[in-house]
């Protein structure tokens, strides 16, 4: 007898799908639980963790932001291989503002966020017409090019970079600032992608001529998505500048391009929450593997492959499905 798996929405999922969700606390909890969970987690984690893991949490949050920034671009049909461009641009903007103009971190971070996003958008404007792999190649080249320019012209400290940035007033402000921004970006941009505006962005990824045919200027929308994504990346760069109190050529390193993509793919692209979840798994994993020694990268790579092979849809999509639906085996009637 042949059998196949059938997926059915859980009763509570169906009941909480409408205004009736307000009728019982179970349904309300079912709906709000997954949304409250990250808030509680982010609020408590800094208290629970030691100094070392607090630093890891910072780096997790930064990679989450980069992964979210990558995911927004990918949702609008632009696969970027150069998130380090956004990161580095924000980092250098903040560094220059702080070192040469003496601005405080609370001024440089917001300014560098907008300035970095703007510069990245302008740099990528000429290639907005490119689709698919052609766009990706340009984004891959740009950070490498910038590194060489800094090396050759010795501007902004050249190969040595600029050190001695002003630090954040306290590590608590540091932690809660980046976690707060992460929460804001996660929920805000998730909402944006679900709105009609987000639908147009997804439409561009799906079929850009059809969107043009609706009288919508796709280049304007692509530039806006680029600016949003650039700002998120630039914020994480500007923030890290003040955490490390240093900015230099490593900000354009390949890590900042590849890890966010890995996080988004492992976590499940398209939801932003998946990208965050992916970063929350991959970055601590890489720290845990430090105990292994020289073969760390090998084990890391193997685990990455295992994740992608076993859950190609992404961890978040898998968890979401389990949360909403149950499975049962039914006989195939023929």
């Amino acid at each position, binding site marked *: 007898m042949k059998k196949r798996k059938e997926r059915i929405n859980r009763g509570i999922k169906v009941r909480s799908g409408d205004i009736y969700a307000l009728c019982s606390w179970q349904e309300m909890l079912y709906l709000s639980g997954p949304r409250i969970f990250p808030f509680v987690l982010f609020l408590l984690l800094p208290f629970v963790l030691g100094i070392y893991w607090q630093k890891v949490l910072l780096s997790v949050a930064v990679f989450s932001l980069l992964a979210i920034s990558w995911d927004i671009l990918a949702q609008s049909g632009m696969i970027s291989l150069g998130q380090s461009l956004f990161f580095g641009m924000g980092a250098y903007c903040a560094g220059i503002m702080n070192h040469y103009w003496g601005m405080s971190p609370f001024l440089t971070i917001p300014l560098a966020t907008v300035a970095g996003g703007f510069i990245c958008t302008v740099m990528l404007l000429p290639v907005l017409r490119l689709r698919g792999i052609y766009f990706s190649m340009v984004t891959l080249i740009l950070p490498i090019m910038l590194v060489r320019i800094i090396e050759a012209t010795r501007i902004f400290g050249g190969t040595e970079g600029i050190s001695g940035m002003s630090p954040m007033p306290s590590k608590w402000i540091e932690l809660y600032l980046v976690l707060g921004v992460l929460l804001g970006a996660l929920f805000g941009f998730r909402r944006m992608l679900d709105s*009609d*505006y987000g*639908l*147009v962005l*997804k*439409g561009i990824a*799906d*079929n850009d*001529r*059809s*969107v*043009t*045919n*609706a*009288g*919508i*200027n*796709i280049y304007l929308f692509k530039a806006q998505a680029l600016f949003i994504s650039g700002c998120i990346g630039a914020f994480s760069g500007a923030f890290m500048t003040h955490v490390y109190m240093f900015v230099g050529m490593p900000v354009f390193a390949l890590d900042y391009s590849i890890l966010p993509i890995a996080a988004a793919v492992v976590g499940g692209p398209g939801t932003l929450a998946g990208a965050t979840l992916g970063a929350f798994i991959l970055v601590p994993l890489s720290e845990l593997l430090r105990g292994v020694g020289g073969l760390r990268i090998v084990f890391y790579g193997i685990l990455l492959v295992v994740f992608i092979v076993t859950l190609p849809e992404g961890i978040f999509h898998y968890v979401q499905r389990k949360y909403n639906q149950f499975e049962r085996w039914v006989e195939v009637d023929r």
Partner: protein
Amino acid sequence: MSQKILLKVEGVSKNFGGVQALSNVSFDLKEGELLGVIGPNGSGKTTLVNLITCFVKSSSGDVIFEGKKINKLPPHKIVQLGIARTFQMVRPFYQLPAYKNMIIPLYSPRVKKMIGGKYGDRDAVALDFLEEVGFERDSFVAYKSAGSLPQGYLKRLELAKAIALQPQLMILDELFSGLSLAEVAGIIPIIEKLRGQGISIIMIEHRLRELFKIADRVIVMNFGEKIADGTAAEVMEQDSVKNAYLGTESTKEETDNDTST
């Protein structure tokens, strides 16, 4: 029907490298008219549409819409002026449910301008437009993902996306191709209704019988040139059209002549 000319195409030509896709095509379209464009495969019909909607830029010649030259504008500007088109190969957003497909045209600047603000709930308006083209209200068709819909519904969706833009001129590129007779019979009343609202329509079609029932005027294309222009009956009487389009009657004589000379 008023005699005001809505669209004027003046001697447009287009060549892709060495291939002359269109050479010196001119025609007028009056307000409220339904113009059929027919011709054998590769005769430049779709290129003509692409030129009018500026998806392709013309090599020479002008396209004038409401007294304004439009052939140098970007394609989204053309739509904002009031020319909507459907594609021969349907281009839905496959991931999205059918009614969500409608949100994108409803988000268009043209629609925003025409209704003077925002729709309260675009989903509800989308469902209204879909019902108009035959997505039954009391079924789940409108909620299915566009990727799982049959061709007939996809063509209707394509039409609904164009209708939602509330255009003055609608260009339907082979709307009937790939549809059954019954499906075509279901779409014709929609087109008749659009004409009733005063919308001018250009239809590119291979299904001549259905087209001739509703078209006011027909132009015939062959090898990138316009070879005939008139009512359906007039056009089909012309020898050049018979040769080019139907192409059987005189073939034998011609080959005989060729061998004799």
